[in-house]
């Protein structure tokens, strides 16, 4: 159970650009829930994820995981139970390191980074197998630096890396936005499989309303730092793209995609 309780977030406090994004924002996410989040540009989706992950501090309020207050836990410690994939495919991998080295890094998450050999030779076949599931041929390029891969290939790798070790939460921020429709589809299927297989609690921000409708068992719409729509269970399943578009139009703002 992940809870955001009475969150207040100001950007640029004390300056002329002061802006209150969240004012008493509340959100409960139950275990193994798959939440799709939509909302116009600047509605606060990324900020919400950043607050959950500890990338930005809050001005007031509490963040709890399973009843434990993690508001003051530094970002890197929270990542122990979180896997995160960003909109920018470059953020999830090390461009100057090879696929094998990237996989080895990800595989060692949660363990000590000591003076043992960085790559465990016995694990290489396992990495190959995992990568071959993608059908992108990455398993043949283990010694290629990741910087030379395409955005889609990198994102797929980032997805694998983020979910390689046991985690509880998967945080996805428009993780298919930079990809062509076919690769996006592939990554979405991969997402669904991984979430199911590892029983992850997932928050997925997307501008693709079809994905928001098709995937997940809860849907949130945000506007100016507030939840304007929150549907789960049967209600969520009954939702269609047009319903969401209507809602979008009602709050009369153009939608990003």
């Amino acid at each position, binding site marked *: 159970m992940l809870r955001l309780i009475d969150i207040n977030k100001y950007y640029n406090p004390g300056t002329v650009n002061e802006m209150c994004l969240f004012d008493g924002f509340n959100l409960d996410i139950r275990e193994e829930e798959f939440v799709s989040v939509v909302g116009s540009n600047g509605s606060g989706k990324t900020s919400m994820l950043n607050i959950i992950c500890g990338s930005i501090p809050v001005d007031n309020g509490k963040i709890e995981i399973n009843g434990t207050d993690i508001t003051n836990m530094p970002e*890197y410690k929270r990542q122990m139970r979180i896997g995160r994939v960003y909109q920018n495919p470059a953020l999830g*991998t*090390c461009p100057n390191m090879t696929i094998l080295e990237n996989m080895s890094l990800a595989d060692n998450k949660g363990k000590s980074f000591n003076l*043992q050999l960085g790559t465990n030779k016995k694990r290489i076949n396992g990495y190959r197998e995992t990568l071959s599931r993608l059908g992108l041929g990455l398993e043949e390029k283990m010694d290629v630096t990741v910087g030379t891969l395409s955005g889609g290939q990198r994102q797929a790798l980032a997805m694998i890396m983020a979910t390689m070790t046991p985690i509880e939460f998967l945080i996805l921020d428009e993780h298919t936005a930079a990809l062509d429709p076919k690769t996006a589809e592939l990554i979405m299927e991969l997402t669904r499989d991984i979430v199911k297989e590892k029983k992850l609690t997932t928050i997925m921000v997307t501008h693709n309303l079809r994905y928001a409708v098709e995937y997940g068992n809860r849907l949130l719409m945000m506007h100016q730092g507030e939840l304007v729509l929150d549907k789960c269970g049967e209600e969520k399943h009954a939702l269609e793209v047009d319903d969401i578009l209507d809602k979008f139009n009602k709050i009369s703002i153009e939608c990003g995609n």
Partner: protein
Amino acid sequence: MLTLIIGILEEGLAYGVLALGVYITYKILDFPDLSVDGTFPLGGAVTVALISMGLNPLIALLASFLIGAFAGMITGIIHVRFRVRDMLSGIIMMTGLYSVNLRIAGSANVAIFTKDSIFDNSFIDRVVPEGFRPYLVVTLLFVIVLIMKILLDVYLKTKSGYLLRAVGDNETVVTSLAKDKGTIKIIGLSIANGFVAMSGGIFVQRNGFFEISIGTGALVAGVASVIIGINLLGKVSFLKATTTVILGSILYKTCVQIAISFGLVSQDRKLITAILFLIILITSNGRKRRVKAHA
């Protein structure tokens, strides 16, 4: 001519360990670490102090590594924990170290000609034949640089080394691995300045004296070696980056020597260094742009 070449090789190799250290900060961590100008003479000061006390010159080298690493750690802590800009953290360290170095060495000039060094001691007197003497220093330097290079190569292949490379490559990945990127940077700066200080110690033992000003331009020499090495020799696939950096150091010293041989006096040395460095930077920028234009 031969003595000249050997002289250049010696100088290049003595600075080779420095270049390895700068490679860690400048290339791997992407951190412009100016503390190098202070930790290079720090290693020298520690070495002359210990050797004057009659300590084994090898142990003096080890000690300079450790104390350099400690200084690098402080630079890292200033930057990471107190959020001082990278450049400024180095400048603070470099400035402070000037006094520290004077304290340790005792004065601005200290000679250790008469003392044992790794290049000149009773063991070598006994073992090394007379005819080999002119090549002794360069051979020993080669061995030391090789050992340090291999140590660094091995480290960069460990889990900890992977993390160090990752933090320079993409900090976000390190955070997602649930590791504190600040700590990794501190470790990196520490190792790098250990190398640099050890290089200072080697330099002082080779020259037989310590001078407070040997650190001026140490970073420039290091960065120049790294850029020359990586840009010029980086394409040669069988050469590791660490090897190219050492070769870069030798090439750089060759360039300086050539410039001096054109009749410039040693007073002009720093000016030559600066201009040479500028040329290296400009040409390497040009190369990068051309590559981009082709892509």
